[in-house]
Each structure stands twice: as structure tokens, then as C-alpha cells.
């Protein structure tokens, strides 16, 4: 018998970090419930993730013990609330390896974070003395892709309408990859910002960004990455990515709704004009005019979602405790299993990469001509929760000539047993509509 040793320096598969999925599942109270008389099979984490007890306890505990407004009180509760809020900011900075905690701006969600950047461009474009990197006008270009969520399309369309700039975009290949073949024609000296999805919420594709980053640097543009689907599922390091801005949202990463993050390079945030005006974002106010606080406060007008931010800090602690590499590896195994299992279903067509490489645990598919609404309804009757529709990425559906898709998406608590339940459910769908 021959044994093959993996040479030193090559990936040693035994070294992959692992965790006990059943123990993780025990942290999520909702996973115990039934749906329509069946155990819950939740395959919609790309939509929103569930929350572990550790996060729910911190959320309730904040209101029960430390509730006060932040950044404006000298009293004890105010100090505790401020420390908890700023402590969460620090945890999130560490989580994405931000060089400075002041580079983390709390927003409502990714959508608000992208709009914040787009409106900063808009406001800068109205002022001759604004930093030229943020000034847009006719002849300037904004580049996105056909793979974007609507939240990374519409704000840029509106920005281009307001400023007279031109919107351009990367296409998607038949296999669900970003078509970079015309990179040099698309990203040019006219480009002011490139805003791309890191991991597609519909195709599951994880975009390799290094070639694009190099080109963006060459032409002197800025790069924003929509990391809503990547930060929850794989280690994301903003220094390594060499982006200028990234956005992500708390509710997809075991945190609560109503809290999201804009990370921006300190020097860029400092050059950006304010977007929302109000309390907390000022330096001094007279009846004639105001001066503004330094980032991140400049972009956080009004009372922020304090408890939500603190709970997002707890979510980051929870994910870090399990390990993002372990979560990434678990999802890779689940995705490989699911791709194989779905390939066994007659008439099923996957949109996006069909190999578990350069993709995450989000799989969109069509089952023959059966409409996704009907697929989702039958699956729901069996307790299997998937998303159906255009997933706020209608251009992707148009690209593949379908009005909608069915999407199964996984997370750290997803099991192979749940994939089996999905496949059994699809057999039922075929029986009803076949």
C-alpha cells in the first residue's frame, strides 16, 4: 500500500479548523421550532441569518441594565452605554482588520452605507472646494456590475442622474463569473468610483478583486466593495482587499436588524463631506452655519441604534469564538454537498458556479418550468424555508432569461440533513406540478 504525504507548504486538510454543528445549533433558539408540522429547515440565511442566544442576551441586557443615550451624558448609565457602543465599534474594526477604529461608521444597513457614499459624492459635486476625488460631472464615470444587488445599482443610477456622470457596468459570464475581459476599456481615467459586490447574493460567486483593484489604482479611481454576503461567511481583511470602502450589514451575520457598517479609509472619510445633518455630527453650530465632527461621528447624525450596535459587537464575538476560517470551511463542505445533491434532481438548473470554488453557500436554481413561487410554497409546507423571486438582483434574472429563481443559502448552522430535506422537498414539488 502506498501512502501519499502532502508536502510541507501545501494545504494540510487535517488542519482545517472545525466545529461541532450540533453544538452551534443549540445556541440558536429558533432552530428548535416547527413550521407547518415539520422541523424548521432554514435555508434563507443570505436573506437574514438567525441570532444566537449570546446575541439576544446582550441585546436584552443592554436595555435592562445599561440603557442611556450615547456621547452626550456625564452620568453613569450614559458612560456605560457610550463605552458599550464604542466597544462594539472596536470589535468590528478588529473583525475586518481595520487599521483604525475611527474608520468604522455605523449605519442602518448596507443600503444606507452605499447611499451615504453616493450622497457624499453628490454633495461634493456641488462644491468647487470639495476633494476632487468625490466630485462628479458630465464625462465622469461610475462602474458597477450586472451582478449587483439593487442596493448597489439604484444609488449610483440616482447619483449619475443628479450629476450628469455616466453609469457603466461589468457583464456576467454564462458560468456566473464577473466578465473582466474588458476591464481596461471599462475602468479608465474617466472612472471616479468602482462599486462591486464581493459575493453575489443570487449567484453565490465570490469575486476575485485583485486585478480590478490594480486597475482602479492605476487610473486613480476609488473602490467600494459590497461585502454584505462575504463578511458574515468568510474572513474579510480590508487591508488585504485594498479597497477604499466596504459595506456590510449586521442582520446577515448573527446580529440584529437596523445596524450596518460603512468602513472607509481614514484619509478618505476625513475628506468626505457630511450627508445627514443633526446632533452628534457637529463640531460647532451657529444660526448661520456649522462645522463638523471628525469621522466616524460626522456620518452618524442623531441617536444611533445603540443596542443594535452593541449586539452586533456580541455577534462578532460569537463568530470570532467559532472562527471565521472554520465557518468558511464548514460552508464550503455544505456547498459541495448541496451542489452534488441538487445535480441529482431531474430538470434542475443552477445559475452561477456549479463547482464549490470561488463561490459561497448561496445557490440559485430553476426546477424545470415550475415557477419559483410554487417551488417555495410547496417547500414551505414541508418546513423548508427558501427565498423565491428576483432577490433584489433583477438584472441577473434578465441575464439568464428567467423572471425569478429559487435560492437556498447556508450558514454555520446548516447541516447536510437540511440539504437532504430540500432535495426531498423538490421531489414533492415535481409531483405536484410535474
Amino acid at each position: 500500500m502506498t501512502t501519499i504525504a502532502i508536502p510541507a507548504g501545501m494545504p494540510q486538510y487535517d488542519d482545517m479548523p472545525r466545529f461541532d454543528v450540533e453544538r452551534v445549533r443549540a445556541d440558536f433558539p429558533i432552530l428548535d421550532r416547527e413550521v407547518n408540522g415539520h422541523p424548521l429547515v432554514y435555508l434563507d440565511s443570505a436573506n437574514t441569518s438567525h441570532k444566537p442566544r449570546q446575541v439576544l442576551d446582550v441585546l436584552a441586557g443592554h436595555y435592562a441594565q445599561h440603557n442611556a443615550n450615547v456621547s452626550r451624558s456625564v452620568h453613569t448609565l450614559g458612560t456605560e452605554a457610550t463605552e458599550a457602543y464604542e466597544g462594539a465599534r472596536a470589535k468590528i474594526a478588529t473583525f475586518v482588520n481595520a487599521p483604525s477604529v475611527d474608520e468604522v461608521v455605523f449605519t442602518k444597513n448596507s443600503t444606507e452605507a452605499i447611499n451615504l457614499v453616493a450622497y457624499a459624492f453628490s454633495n461634493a459635486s456641488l462644491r468647487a472646494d470639495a476633494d476632487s476625488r468625490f466630485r462628479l460631472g458630465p464625462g465622469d464615470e461610475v462602474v458597477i456590475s450586472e451582478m449587483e444587488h439593487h442596493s448597489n445599482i439604484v444609488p449610483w443610477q440616482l447619483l449619475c442622474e443628479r450629476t450628469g456622470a455616466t453609469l457603466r457596468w461589468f457583464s456576467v459570464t454564462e458560468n456566473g463569473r464577473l466578465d473582466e475581459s474588458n476591464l481596461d476599456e471599462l475602468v479608465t481615467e474617466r472612472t471616479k468610483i468602482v462599486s462591486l459586490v464581493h459575493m453575489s447574493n443570487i449567484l453565490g460567486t465570490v469575486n476575485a478583486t485583485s486585478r480590478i483593484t490594480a486597475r482602479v489604482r492605476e487610473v486613480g479611481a476609488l473602490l467600494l466593495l459590497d461585502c454584505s454576503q462575504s463578511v458574515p461567511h468568510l474572513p474579510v481583511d480590508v487591508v488585504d482587499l485594498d479597497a477604499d470602502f466596504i459595506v456590510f450589514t449586521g442582520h446577515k451575520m448573527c446580529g440584529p436588524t437596523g445596524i450596518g457598517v460603512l468602513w472607509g479609509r481614514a484619509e478618505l472619510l476625513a475628506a468626505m463631506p457630511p450627508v445627514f445633518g443633526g446632533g452628534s455630527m457637529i463640531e460647532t453650530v451657529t444660526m448661520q452655519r456649522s462645522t463638523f465632527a471628525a469621522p466616524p461621528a460626522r456620518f452618524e447624525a442623531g441617536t444611533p441604534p445603540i443596542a443594535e450596535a452593541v449586539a452586533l459587537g456580541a455577534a462578532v464575538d460569537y463568530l470570532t469564538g467559532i472562527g471565521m476560517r472554520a465557518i468558511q470551511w464548514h460552508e464550503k463542505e455544505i456547498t459541495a454537498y448541496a451542489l452534488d445533491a441538487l445535480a441529482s434532481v431531474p430538470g434542475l438548473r443552477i445559475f452561477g458556479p456549479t463547482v464549490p470554488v470561488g463561490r459561497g453557500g448561496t445557490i440559485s436554481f430553476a426546477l424545470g418550468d415550475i415557477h419559483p413561487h410554487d417551488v417555495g410554497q410547496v417547500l414551505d409546507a414541508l418546513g423548508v424555508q427558501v427565498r423565491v423571486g428576483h432577490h433584489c438582483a433583477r438584472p441577473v434574472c434578465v441575464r439568464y432569461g428567467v423572471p425569478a429563481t429559487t435560492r437556498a443559502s447556508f450558514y454555520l448552522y446548516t447541516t447536510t440533513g437540511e440539504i437532504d430535506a430540500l432535495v426531498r422537498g423538490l421531489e414533492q414539488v415535481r409531483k405536484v406540478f410535474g
Partner: protein
Amino acid sequence: MQLDGLYQDIILDHYKHPQGRGLRDCADPQARVAEAHHVNPTCGDEVTVRVATDGSVLTDVSYDGMGCSISQASASVLHELLHGRAVADAFGVHEAFVELMSGRGQVTPDEDVLGDGVAFAGVARYPARVKCALLPWMAFKDAAARAGVGASPEVKA
């Protein structure tokens, strides 16, 4: 499975064998013809309904579209119930169908009025699907209004 209330055989039958599908031209040059295209933005379902009328009778109600079984079967039932009907009757049926779908499953449909439309009683218990069932009916209402036989007081009376 608990889906029998939703996917009645009548609905599946209309879905698999749609009645009167396809947008038709009207031979009568005097007829008033208008259409409306409606979209369900949450799922991308689409339907176009075309109404031809001489002012008192709906001489044709034709349609085309793509979408789930509920929306497409509903369009088929709409055609079956309304084409060739007097305008006033048609709006009575329309009202009864909308009432049924808004009833959260508490409305008992009248088969004499709604025909195969009674099969949609179960759909009213699935709030996420009510919009699917109503899509062709809302498009019909718009198309009829554009053809000059909208829900005006004398039509409703």
C-alpha cells in the same frame, strides 16, 4: 402536506391548460380596445390583459403573461368568467373576486358568481399569494378603464 387548500385541482388545471391565453386583435374597427401590463415587483410576475368592448359588452378579454401557477390560473379564470359578459355583470364578478381575496379566508364565495374562481378561496389564507391571484384582475380593471368602461358609477349600478 397542508397545501390542498391552496393548490386546488381547478387551479392546477387552469395553470396546465390555460383558457383563452394569448393577446388577440379585435376584428370590429368600431370596438374600443385597451390593455394594461401589471408586474408584481416582489417576484417578477407579469401579465398583460387586453379588453375589447362595444361599450356595453366585453367582446373579448385576452391576456398573456408569465408567472406562478396562482397568477396564471387566475388570468385563465378571469378570461373564462369575463369575456363576452355585459360590462355591469363583469364588474360585479370583479368585485366578488376582490372581496374573496381580501377576506383572509373568512369569505364564502358564491359559485354562481365566481364559477371556477371559488377555487381561489384557499389562496386568501396565504397573504403572500393574494397579490399573485389579484395581479390579472388589477390589470383587467386598468385595461377596462382605458377602454372607457372603468368602474364609473353607471357601470357599477
